[in-house]
């Protein structure tokens, strides 16, 4: 198994707070890797650093063997590294279909083509079917439920055929049935060859879906391994339950 994402000695400070502190880990191609840890342990900041949303103070990020530290989120997206947000971010004034089309990773020249071409429709229709959004394709994203928006955000970034998808709390604020739906979609995509890095607080979800699991505390990994392994690691229990 080859290394798809390599994070090396990454550090980020916000004033006096060191959110991410000399953090190193790797994500192997073809895995669903989980990133867990108590609130404030730096998981989302790591996401922001890896995807170029925030500049790192020091350290390096390599994606499929290439140094991508400091690269803009848009270029990373076009190279196959994309993410979702804790609070699903879709474009409320665009239709569901348009939300997919706009995420197609267009070149500048591509902007001058038709807003939603027939080819776009065909391409988007597959994803709409896959995510059962086909019946709401012409609704505005503002008219979707919260859970549907999370599905839409996930579906939209698949327009770029990403190699690695970072999911920031995919089950936060959605109902149990939709959690299962979300899990099924991740599994299906994983089976099709996409690698995932998931930040999640729902431990049952993580233990069912993810392997390996990386545990974060105070800005760096303290343990990693199979779900069973980290669950029995005393450092992990300590980080979660405290002294």
């Amino acid at each position, binding site marked *: 198994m080859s290394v798809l994402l390599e994070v090396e000695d990454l550090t980020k400070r916000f004033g006096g707070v060191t959110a991410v502190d000399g953090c190193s880990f790797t994500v192997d191609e073809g895995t669903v890797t989980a990133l867990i840890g108590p609130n404030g342990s730096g998981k989302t900041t790591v996401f922001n650093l890896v*995807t170029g*949303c925030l500049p790192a103070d020091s350290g390096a990020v390599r994606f499929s063997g290439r140094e991508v530290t400091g690269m*803009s*989120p*848009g*270029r990373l*997206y*076009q190279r196959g590294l*994309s*993410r979702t*947000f804790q609070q699903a*971010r879709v*474009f*409320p*004034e*665009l239709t569901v279909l*348009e939300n997919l*089309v*706009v*995420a*197609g*990773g*267009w*070149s*500048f020249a*591509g*902007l*001058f*083509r*038709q*807003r*939603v071409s027939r080819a776009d429709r065909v391409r988007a229709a597959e994803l709409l079917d896959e995510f059962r959004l086909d*019946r*709401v394709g012409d*609704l505005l994203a503002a*008219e*979707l*439920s919260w859970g549907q928006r999370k599905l839409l955000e996930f579906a*939209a*970034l698949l327009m*770029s055929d990403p190699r690695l998808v970072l999911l920031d709390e995919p089950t936060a604020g959605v109902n149990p049935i939709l959690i299962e739906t979300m899990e099924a979609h991740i599994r299906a995509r994983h089976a099709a060859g996409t690698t995932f890095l998931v930040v999640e607080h729902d431990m049952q979800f993580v233990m069912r879906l993810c392997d390996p699991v990386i545990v974060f505390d105070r800005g760096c990994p303290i343990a990693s391994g199979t779900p069973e392994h980290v669950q029995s690691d005393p450092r992990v229990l300590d980080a979660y339950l405290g002294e």
Partner: protein
Amino acid sequence: MTRGGLSRAGVLAVVLAVLPLALPQHWVVSMLVFTVMYAALASSWNLIGGFAGYPSLGHAAFFGFGAYTVALIFPNTHNLSNGLLPFAILPGIAVVAGLIGLPIGAIAMRTRADVFAIVTITLLFVAQTLALNLRSLTGGAQGAGVAVPPFDVANFERPFYYAMAVLLLVAMGAGWYSQRSKIGLSLAAVRADEDKARGIGVHVTGVKLLAFSVSVGITAMIGGVWAYYVDFVYPQFAFDPLITIGMVLMAFLGGRGTLWGPVIGAVVLVPAQQYLAYELGGSQLYLIAYALVFLLIMRFLPRGILPTLTHLRRRRRLIAAADPAPRTAAAELGLAHDGQGGARV
């Protein structure tokens, strides 16, 4: 183009062509010139202020740039053998203004929303101050005269009117094209959530600069026609905050981010303003009355005339469609409490 869009464009072109022939009185045509001018200004402002969500208050700087360019190339000492010559240089003005707009837009659009509005209004006052102080070039506060147009007195306004009408069609054409292409899709994404748009590979900077550049280019051409029409440019009128505010208000009123909203806004506001100025002209009361018109519309149609109407129509349709999928969406909007799917708008 859809059939509806094509026929609407055709109707507009015919109406614009026929209006001054049907209503040939000088004062009417003069008012038409200003109505169409503001419709064109609001439509070109809409490219960046509406579709991209960057509320520029600095567009009058480019309006003034176009006005002064015409005044300096065709000063009043110039004897115009061909009255159409100043119109011929307008595309050149647009290109130069568009190019000047690139670095300005690149810097100004590092800020957003209200900060962007303040940064751009600063641009307007910088331009005005330059026009006041570069006396050797602009004539300073004394203004600059423009060559007298050698047009027939009986139909003096017509060439200016038609020039403005063409520019309105250009501005609306640019808006229409952007909405039909992925430019409009990208701009809508920028307007809603710029960082997210950047994160999914949208060419945020490129598309913003394109919209800004085209927008100010058209604005400058309108300024050029205006200068030739009024025949004399002063810094305080060519770089007038009221021009900026006028185009912004009209776009807001009619519905920014829509193709026809700015036109509707201009058609309502310009004649209203002229009428109120005529009725209450002696005092400055007309400005208060003008503000009142605006307050009333913002109170009752806060999203602008066109989007409010579109929203109402969409609600009707959603509720009328008894199909369960849109129903859940309608229910979430809090529209379908009765469970009967009856229209209650």
